[in-house]
């Protein structure tokens, strides 16, 4: 089980849930996002246990995954 926390505007894509618990240990971040119905291309930054990783990163049981989009640009 992993915990997925969409930050900022991404929460709107998961009905404003602050976190989701997913059976995604062993999955890539990209696969976990798809499980949560979040399109990976909308995610700009992924933090696993507060460390930045790319979307190919494999998740382990108990990981906390924070994902952030960029809605506005500079």
């Amino acid at each position, binding site marked *: 089980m992993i915990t997925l926390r969409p930050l*900022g505007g991404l929460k709107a894509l998961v009905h404003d849930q602050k976190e989701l618990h997913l059976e995604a240990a062993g999955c890539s971040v990209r696969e976990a996002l798809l499980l949560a119905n979040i399109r990976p291309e909308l995610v700009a930054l992924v933090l696993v246990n507060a460390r930045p990783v790319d979307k190919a990163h494999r998740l382990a049981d108990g990981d906390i995954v924070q994902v952030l989009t960029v809605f506005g*640009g500079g």
Partner: protein
Amino acid sequence: MNGYGGSILRVNLTEGKITRLPTPADVIRDYIGGRGFGAYFLYHEVPAHADPLGPENKLIISTGPLSGLMIPGAGKCDFSTKSPLTGGYAGSSLGGLFTAEMKYAGIDSIILEGISPKPVYLFIDDRKAELRDASEYWGKGSITVERMFKEQLGEEFQVAVIGPGGENLVSYASINHDYGREAGRGGVGAVMGSKRLKAIVLHGTQSVQVADLAGYRQAGMALFKACKDSDGLKPWQDYGTTIVTSWCDEVGALPTRNFSAGSFEGGPTLYGPVMREQIVITDKGCFGCPSPCGKYSRMKRYGSTVEGPEYETIGMLGSNLGIADIQDVAQANLLCDELGIDTISAGSAIGWAMECFEKGILTLEDTGGLELRFGNVPAVFELLQAIAKRQGLGALLSQGVKAAAKQVGKGSEKFAIHVKGMEQSAYATHNATAMLLAYMTCDVGAHHNRSWAITYDLQVGRELVVPEKVARIIWLQDFRPMFDVFGTCRLQWVELGIDRELYVPALAAVTGVQRSWEELEMVGARIWNLNRMFWIRENEGFGREWDLPAPRFYEEAPKTGVTAGQITRLEDVHKLLDMYYEQRGWSSNGIPTPATLEKLGLAELAQTL
């Protein structure tokens, strides 16, 4: 005049005369401040067809009603002028601490006009304002001169200064402040240089009167609390604008080798987390910022430090030039800052020249012996110096890619990446129709900050050409620049997701005037149309052709990366413009109709059509 400094400081550099007059109440009512003041004074005070670098052009520097107050990011200052790069309206925004001191000196706008017979700087200390000899500073770099002023006058003085680029009238010269903040776009630094004004050095101590002190405190605290509570705050502070580097690479928006592609094989070495780990020393914010996105970086290889690089600079001086080392990019950033030239336009000009060289359009004879291939870092450093000094190939590139390509010809116009003469900032728009339209119709040329829509393209379908996309762009263009009218940063709303409604009571408590977002967007539309009319007045034959993007985005699909083979067709480009003009209330040639002007309170401008 609640929320305002209360005066306009007019500086005639030809005569050496400085006057202060009350800020006109009707301009406050109709244009509010900041970018609104800049657009108003530019249109009404600069005579038609004035030479951008001549005495008739003016440089207008404006605070907004929220500048310098207890509001998140209230450190934004607007610089407006007729652009030497485009021949149209230029409006560039500067962060840092300058605008707060300007407000505390009781000034809403500084209007610079005429040309000084010798180099001078403008010294302002509260009510005192005078022009002083600048021969000691002329010829020196902007960071060097700022440091000199701070040592000579004290840290409390804030400095806006040009470098050699501005002195030498480089068409995209910047005005620099706080060792790494720039009013970068449109050549505002060249206009300042043309007036032989090296710097503005100012300090103020006066209070700003607000209409409702308790309401102001409450509204300001509500905004700060919303920023503090945002779960996007920590990553935004850690990475700032570089959050988007990896994402742009992933979605094909990272400018690569003069925008010939949107994904860069060396991209991962430029990503935000890599930069943070390798070179960032600390974070840096502007006045009143709860979410400091600026970064100070140390380049060990060069023994130097710089504020930055921001995403735009990474895109334009990194991937766009085929450079895959963050220290090299940061060093190029430092060179641009000291020389006083815009990193975006400089990166585009050099990228264009590199493509010309690789295609044999420019030869070793043209480049002065430089092997101007993508990825050649020493050549980039040398060329940046040459641009600022307008020497050799640098003289050609100092005019911007539109003028340079016109001069060189041989098909190079097709890969000169600009709209209306302004080099496109760092989002590749192959098959991203909303963002492409945003660039095409932006009121300064191809700049991203008025409306930014790449995520929106991905959300709704990047190839779609539908009225909803056009409506989204117009809404953003009317709404987002209002932060530049208030004198605040837009990034708290943009990236922390702060509810924009929180700004309404803040503005009302400060100014005593209640305005809904509907009314504020009307002011935004008024400014947008006024600027459009400035373009029309200044450029004979202005119309649809001016809004077309670089042919690269409709004729030549990328060969590599995630957007390989993808392109927006020219007929869709025109369809976007058809819908845009219709929704704006403009003619099919992109000219505001008399009815539209009348609706926006600009009826008198219809006579000029």
